[in-house]
């Protein structure tokens, strides 16, 4: 994402999130866990992308290497200890609430599910949870490809679906019309 932004390969409409206060969540796996395993944590990358999309965003406290886990990490989202998971997440919920943000950006599937489907209801957060790639996708100014590019892609797609034995519905309709 950073590469696309820095190289000018995508354009962002900053109006999309204008006037909305956003906060960010540091997933343990991109932070502490990554630092431990790979000697590199990813905190600034998330903030760079959010900064490109939003005018107003705030960090939680505490954050980065001292951030609280969403409560569903390590496979806990899938485990049967639901009450423990929600109890665990109270710290994260308090942090998010204290920011007063309307949107929390969660750059991890697991954290997003816990905050969106677990903590928001349990702690009455009244907040929208979005993936970082969802925020970026929503604020893209998408320029349709040129007719040549579309034709090339359609030819590739047709060849691919034939190779894989996939028949799409409106392709069927077209065939029937013929």
């Amino acid at each position, binding site marked *: 994402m950073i590469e696309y932004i820095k190289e000018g390969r*995508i354009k962002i409409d900053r109006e999309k999130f204008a006037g909305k206060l956003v906060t960010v969540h540091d997933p343990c796996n991109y932070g502490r866990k990554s630092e431990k395993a790979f000697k590199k944590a990813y905190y600034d990358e998330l903030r760079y992308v959010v900064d490109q999309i939003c005018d107003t965003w705030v960090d939680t406290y505490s954050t980065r290497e001292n951030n609280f886990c969403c409560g569903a990490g390590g496979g806990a989202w899938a485990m049967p200890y639901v009450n423990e998971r929600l109890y665990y997440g109270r710290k994260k919920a308090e942090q998010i609430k204290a920011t007063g943000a309307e949107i929390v950006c969660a750059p991890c599937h697991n954290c997003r599910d816990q905050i969106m489907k677990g903590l928001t209801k349990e702690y009455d957060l009244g907040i929208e949870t979005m993936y970082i790639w969802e925020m970026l996708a929503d604020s893209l100014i998408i320029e349709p*490809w040129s007719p040549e590019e579309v034709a090339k892609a359609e030819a590739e797609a047709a060849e691919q679906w034939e190779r894989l034995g996939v028949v799409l519905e409106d392709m069927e309709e077209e065939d029937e019309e013929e």
Partner: protein
Amino acid sequence: MSQEPLKLGKRESKLRVDPKWADVCLTCGTCAGGCPVTGVDGFDPRKAVRMAALGLDDELINSRWPWVCTLCGRCERACPMGVEIVAMTRRARGLRERDKVPGPIHKGTMMNLQRGNNLGIPKDDFVQLLAEVGHEEMDECCPGFYVPIDKVGARVITTINSKEPFGEPEDMRFWWKIYYAAKESWTISSTNWEGVNWGLFSGDDESMKEQVGRVVENARRLKAEILLLPE
């Protein structure tokens, strides 16, 4: 009732915790202070370390604690003595009998080894879904878009979190829109595309490595330069 004395030593310890840890750990409790589930079931990271140092391996392995803990690493980060609490806790998970691993994470791992993803989604269904969502849902914003599958020489290969094709297929479009806008050359493998590695969480090193190996093998087979795991 007489009990055999516990033998302490790095070799005796299933958790590979040397009794010296009892001296290394200062029992300062900084780890416990920073842990959101301190107190649950009467456990906390400091107690878990102490249990391991005292040879109470089975008590720790059979407790819920290693699974209620999310392995977030906040305890370890705060530890002034560098005690490797996360690795120890993960080892405790790995030593749990496999049929007693809570929830679906072990079953999902086995499913993955058999069928290439945690939820056992068949290849044909997966490919059909990518074709349909890519076709119907992207038409309006992105004329010409399709999901390139097994495209040799694509620059980027991406994994997929199986919950998306299973329950939230429309969420796959976020990345697709970004690829479209950036005119990226990208692809998804039709097999072994799972991005979630539950072996990491169940403490199953062998399965974890196998799964990582498959993802890397996909990238090599399709000659991709960049492997993207949007997890």
